[in-house]
């Protein structure tokens, strides 16, 4: 265990007690990266000099008594679909190779304002489309718990960096589970906030009505701390929540006594690994012992969620990705005519999964098919939202596995449909726009981490964090990837 393995909370305390400096933390994280990156490949870009500069600046400010809060001086990784001024931002796509945005995403501005040290840009499935980070045009990220396996995705680089100690926390984006599923597969906490509470300005869009940025951290307390740094109204994002924001810490230590916890009955059975189901059962027993009431809740429409998602998300992406045409930035492959240039650029610049989804979405929106596909999917989304709302009349939170499986080997899911099933438990929260969090609770017999998911009504993050922290405490999960033990 070294400085790179500290929680954000402990690292922040140490900065103030004088136990270490931000430079110490940042160097520790960069050193760790230099040891792990060759194998893990969590990052697409590491901005070493800028990170060290930011760390020195943070140390100077803290020394001068200018304390910006918990994230001040903390090394954080950004998923590479968030624009950072002057730093190559590719969304792991060939079509954006070499692209340096002229502006910062709002979350980047927020992290800078909070004094965080931006270490680099983490790998992802191209344009956040995937559940394994195998779809990165720059090569996959490997799972620190077993480099023969995927870290999950699409925020696989962010989750792997946090698990490996090459960042103390990271931002991911979650469109159908892309924070929570890699969180679960990498044994870290992954949290998707209520839609609209974290600005999407500067997040390279996959599916606008579903995308949400959130924290990936080692603990629930860290999740709260990192979310606090990025949440809030942004006038540059029209879908940003303009009302009051709750105090995220207000229920963190309230426990679960008297809470009603619903278990979604549809998320079990075929396709769910026994160790995953058992971990959830054990967690529920612990919560029950701690005073929570556990009830079974059926949400029949979640069976349709995957289908609805794979129409809505591709439909939105088919338009969102239309701007990558070789005209103004990024890759350009010349052609005889403008149209030919655009077509060639897109054919060469996008990977197969991105092309698959653009085609799927274009088809779903086409005249004559709209009603049968996109229109129906929207109706299913509305029904699902109503079903969630009705469930929350009866229970405080809902729980399920985060992922039906633990981390799987590379190339294990070459059938896209099998891969899509990885997100079956996480997609419903995106369709509903509600917050959800994955908390690691244990290891399977192969030593691979397992997470459980807590879902809550919109803006009920404080309660959700309270339940999540209780789960974390009861699980006592403190295992570390073996590769880190070997490093030490």
């Amino acid at each position, binding site marked *: 265990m070294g400085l790179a393995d500290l929680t954000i909370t402990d690292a922040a305390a140490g900065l103030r007690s004088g136990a270490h400096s931000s430079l110490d933390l940042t160097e520790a994280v960069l050193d760790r990266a230099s040891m792990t990156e060759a194998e893990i490949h969590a990052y697409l870009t590491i901005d070493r000099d800028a990170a060290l500069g930011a760390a020195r600046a943070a140390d100077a400010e803290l020394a001068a008594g200018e304390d910006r809060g918990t994230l001040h001086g903390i090394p954080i990784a950004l998923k590479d679909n968030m624009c950072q001024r002057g730093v190559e931002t590719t969304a792991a796509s060939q079509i954006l190779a070499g692209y340096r945005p002229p502006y910062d995403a709002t979350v980047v501005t927020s992290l800078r304002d909070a004094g965080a040290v931006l270490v680099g840009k983490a790998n992802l499935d191209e344009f956040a489309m995937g559940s394994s980070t195998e779809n990165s045009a720059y090569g996959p990220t490997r799972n620190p718990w077993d480099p023969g396996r995927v870290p999950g995705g699409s925020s696989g680089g962010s989750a792997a960096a946090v698990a490996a100690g090459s960042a103390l926390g990271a931002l991911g984006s979650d469109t159908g589970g892309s924070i929570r599923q890699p969180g679960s597969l990498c044994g870290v906490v992954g949290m998707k906030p209520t839609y609209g509470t974290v600005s999407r*300005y500067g997040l390279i869009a996959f599916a606008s009505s579903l995308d949400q940025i959130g924290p990936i951290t080692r603990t629930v307390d860290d999740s709260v701390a990192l979310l606090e740094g990025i949440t809030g109204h942004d006038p540059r994002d*029209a879908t940003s929540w303009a009302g009051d924001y709750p105090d995220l810490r207000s229920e963190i230590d309230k426990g679960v006594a008297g809470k009603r916890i619903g278990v979604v009955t549809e998320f079990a059975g075929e396709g769910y690994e026994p160790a995953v189901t058992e971990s959830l059962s054990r967690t529920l027993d612990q919560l029950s012992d701690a005073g929570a009431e556990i009830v079974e809740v059926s949400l029949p429409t979640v069976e349709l969620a995957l289908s609805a998602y794979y129409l809505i998300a591709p439909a939105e992406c088919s338009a969102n990705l239309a701007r990558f045409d070789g*005209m103004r930035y990024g890759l350009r492959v010349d052609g005889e005519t403008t149209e030919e240039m655009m077509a060639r650029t897109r054919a060469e610049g996008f990977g197969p999964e991105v092309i698959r989804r653009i085609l799927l979405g274009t088809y779903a929106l086409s005249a004559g098919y709209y009603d049968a596909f996109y229109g129906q999917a929207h109706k299913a989304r509305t029904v699902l939202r109503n079903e969630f709302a009705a469930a929350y009349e009866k229970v405080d939170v809902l729980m399920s596995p985060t992922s039906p499986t633990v981390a799987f080997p590379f190339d294990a899911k070459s059938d896209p449909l099998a891969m899509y099933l990885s997100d079956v438990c996480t997609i419903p929260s995106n369709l509903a726009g509600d917050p959800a969090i994955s908390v690691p609770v244990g290891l399977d017999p192969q030593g691979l981490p397992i997470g459980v998911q807590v879902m809550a009504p919109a803006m009920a993050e404080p309660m959700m964090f309270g339940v999540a922290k209780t789960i974390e405490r009861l699980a006592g999960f403190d295992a570390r990837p073996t590769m880190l033990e070997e490093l030490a």
Partner: protein
Amino acid sequence: MSDTATWEPVIGIEVHVELATRSKMFCGCAVSFGEDPNTNVCPTCLALPGALPVTNGRAIEWITKIGLALNCDIAEWSVFHRKNYFYADLPKNYQISQFDLPVCHDGWLDVDADGETVRIGIERAHQEEDTGKSLHLGDGGRIHAATETLLDFNRAGVPLVEVVSRPDIRSAVQARAYAQTLREVIAELDVSDARLEEGSIRFDANISVRRGPNAPFGTKVEIKNMNSFRSLEKAVDFEIKRQIAELEAGGEIVQETRHWDEESGVTTSMRTKEGSSDYRYFTEPDLVPLVVTPAWQEEIRATLPELPHQRKARYIDLGVDPQTAGALGSADAMLRALFEETVAAGAGPRSAANWITGEVVAWMRREDVVGIDVEASAIAEMIGMIDANELSTSAAKDVLDGILRGEGGARQVAESRDLLQMTDTGAIESAVDAVLADNPDAVERYRGGEQKVVGFLVGQVMRATQGKADPKAVNGLLREKLS
């Protein structure tokens, strides 16, 4: 064989109006023309990765204003859609527009054409954004022959309102009148530069012909690139004739877009539409629904100015003849203010309107000035003097010239220029006598039955009195003396 006269043209017009808001529709870039290319741009209007749109509230206020002026219903709740198509000057490769829930719908506009007033239905007015501009270098400035194309995104994202008429227009003259009247309304609302030559108002016409008013609609053809009201009228006229000729010859009309060529005066095929284009419209997920509350709508309604057709009706009520009322209703604000003030200063509205739309405008044209600084009371005074027989109409034109040159009030000018009508009957009589004495031939011809020669004699007396005699009195006196 068929009779050409039985064909009825059916025309609908789409008008694109660029709003003159300070900033663009979905970002903070300035709306400004004539700047260096690609200077009014930002991540949002260049469609950089990650950039998002935010709706310009002023544009929504203004489209609501347009809708109210066009007697539309205003949707309390409307929605932006993405209209998907790839084009080099469309940065996102989709346009944020509106589809099935526009801000304004079901209105109408009354249009005067060929001496009658026609009510043209307005199907909808929706909010969207403009594209960038392509500059095709090489032969003729058209895309097909271009050797190189440059793109300027300064215009990309400028607020655009599309007003879609119902297919209620039945002639090229009506088409022109509709477009002109709509432009007048837009100009009056002060929401757009409303200049055709700069493209801040653009027209497309959908034209078909059918056999009489009860026949089903024919196949429609869309005409683009009409840059003036005159070319709109000519293009529509040409296209109607082309379609009739085609059908008369046993041919078929192909649904297509045609380009109006101003120089050769013909429309030529641009591209054939395969059915209707599939724009794959879907709700814009980056924006929330647009809400125009009834309270806001009423606030906006309260800011509506008097519109040209409303003014025309009011002027007619005041006694102005309809044609002059129409001209004055559409005249510029300075002339209208002059009219209102002249009437307020006591002049009869009919005379005031005639003088202002007639002689004042003619004087300005002659002198080549766009504005005049004149006291309305001087013109009212002049009209009063005419009514009191103190000024002849021709002398009054001289007086007006003096007034407009700043020589003072009407009486002052009339006196200094010695233009007051002769009230001294003795003086008129001696002038008449003198003219009769000088023109024995004319007198002879009159007496020989050539009545019209009296006009010549009146003219001679008027000249002798330098226009100051009352022509009516002169006429009477002459006839009396000649009989």
